[in-house]
């Protein structure tokens, strides 16, 4: 009896504890109702356009038909993945993505660092500001405009570059339809558009360097090149390493709009990447399930790489991104 009464009492207090917790939650929510109202549109956005699509990737395992909807379409398991991996296109897409990314890594990645070092050595502030304003600008131009300018400059029949080549006695070059030049073209466009923008973060890291270090080096007789080599570069080493790791983490992401715009029949072999393939098969040909499977494959690899890269970046004493 006594034991029973005790447990009953305990249950009651547990119950009432739960009740007060629930009550408090309810009171808190009511107190903050306007805050919830403020976050509501944003939360709805993330549910509607991020979480429902995340859940929507299940159509990669279905034979999705728009009439049946996600709930009633037939399940086919890994059929689409098997089809994609056994398709010769798969190796091609993978190669193109990797090559475009690697070219960017090798030729584009060091340039903002070099440009920052040069800018850092400029004593005249007006000159430095002017150059900065100029080199930041292309970042804001759309890829459509950049593609258009590229066509204007490099067109085989009327581009100014080919006009110059002809005047100098060379044959005109088919920059825009040449398979061998396509990756180079993409890299050059990227360099022109983004090098200046990339200097912002590196210049910021350079400003954090203690000026006393330079004073000391000067007294020791180090010239400007040696100061750059022995002070500036080591000081920004961590930032560079983190940027490099994060870049490696997004190696599956290539400039999709850029490729989409620069692509043409003559260069499809070297230009096709996962997104262009998804666009063609999914949006244009209506193979929703198959192209979702292709996209999902790319996203999963991307996810693994980003998480790994972020872990690594944290090891280098930086906060990382997440």
């Amino acid at each position, binding site marked *: 009896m006594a034991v029973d009464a005790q447990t009953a009492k305990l249950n009651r207090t547990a119950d009432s504890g739960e009740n007060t917790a629930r009550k408090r939650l309810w009171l808190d929510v009511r107190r903050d109702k306007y805050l919830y109202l403020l976050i509501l549109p944003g939360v709805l956005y993330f549910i509607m356009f991020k979480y429902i699509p995340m859940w929507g990737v299940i159509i990669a395992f279905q034979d999705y038909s728009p009439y049946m909807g996600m709930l009633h379409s037939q399940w086919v398991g890994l059929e689409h993945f098997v089809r994609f991996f056994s398709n010769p296109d798969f190796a091609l897409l993978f190669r193109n993505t990797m090559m475009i990314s690697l070219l960017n890594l090798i030729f584009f990645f060091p340039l903002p660092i070099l440009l920052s070092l040069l800018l850092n050595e400029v004593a005249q502030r007006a000159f430095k500001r002017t*150059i900065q304003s100029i080199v930041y600008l292309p970042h804001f131009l759309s890829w459509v405009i950049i593609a258009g300018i590229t066509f204007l400059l490099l067109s085989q029949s009327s581009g100014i570059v080919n*006009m110059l080549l002809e005047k100098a006695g060379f044959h005109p070059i088919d920059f825009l339809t040449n398979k061998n030049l396509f990756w180079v073209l993409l890299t050059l466009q990227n360099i022109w558009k983004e090098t200046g923008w990339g200097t912002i973060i590196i210049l910021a890291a350079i400003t954090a360097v203690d000026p006393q270090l330079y004073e000391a080096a000067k007294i020791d007789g180090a010239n400007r090149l040696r100061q750059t080599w022995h002070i500036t570069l080591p000081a920004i080493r961590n930032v560079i390493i983190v940027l490099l790791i994060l870049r490696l983490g997004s190696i599956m992401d290539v400039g999709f709009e850029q490729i989409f715009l620069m692509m043409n029949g003559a260069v499809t072999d070297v230009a096709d990447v996962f997104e262009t393939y998804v666009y063609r098969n999914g949006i244009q040909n209506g193979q929703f399930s198959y*192209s979702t499977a292709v996209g999902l494959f790319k996203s999963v690899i991307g996810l693994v790489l980003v998480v790994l890269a972020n872990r690594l970046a944290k090891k280098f004493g930086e906060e990382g991104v997440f």
Partner: protein
Amino acid sequence: MKESLGSRLFNTCNYGVLGIIGAITLFPLYYVFVVSFTDPHEFADKNGFILFPVHWSTSAYDYLFSTSAFLKATGVSTFLATVGTALSLMVTSAIAFGLSRKRLRGRRFILIGIVLTLLFNPGFIPPYLVVRELGLINSVWSLIVPVLTSGWYVILMKSFFDNIPVELEEAAMIDGSTDLGTFFRIVLPLSAPALAAFGLFYAVAYWNTFFTAVLYINDFAKVPLQIVLRNMLVDSSTSTGGATAVEMVSDQQIPTQTIKMAAVVISTLPILCVYPFLQKHFTKGVMLGSVKG
């Protein structure tokens, strides 16, 4: 202290190299500008080899402003860059403010949910199906609503709000201000630089809207400027993609090079105009992103 010879030589080289980099960056833009103002006959005569036109002409601009397609598309892009930017700033700052209140129940849960959206990208077929289910295909809202805010900007803006001194808000609370009052009268005005930076990024993104329009808009009366530009600029005979590619220009003459470049100038102009005013803000915006993360 007099500079050493080595140092002076270093300076000269450095200024020279930077000057060349500046020139390489500017030349394409200068060339586009010059071609757009060149008399079409002169352009044809000189075979495109023009560094400074003898005869200035605005005929390319006259032509563009007489075509309804170009004007309409400019109108669509202007709508996106104004209404879209305003909506995006409102939604982003509102959710960022809410999530910066530490006492808000469910705050961590929502924050983690937002970070996860940054890690996993479902590709563009599932969002396309959502937009289609919502009946937004061929609506100008399909260019705004699916990109209304972004996890990055929410988290960056939240960390900006986190750094506003609590004392200011407490003082307002004591004076009887509600959360909404604090948000509108204290936090937002104090965040003007951040709002300017994010506003610029949103506005540029909306003005440059291209791929969402390729996906969601098939009706030529509703395409934004970048689509019209693409149709004018990219050689339609070699281009592969885009259900919307060729049709638009088919009712017009094939645009001449000078007209193409005038179109580029017009679509670059708004960016060039706001650029100097916002330059100091956007570098701050980038810094916010890189330092805070």
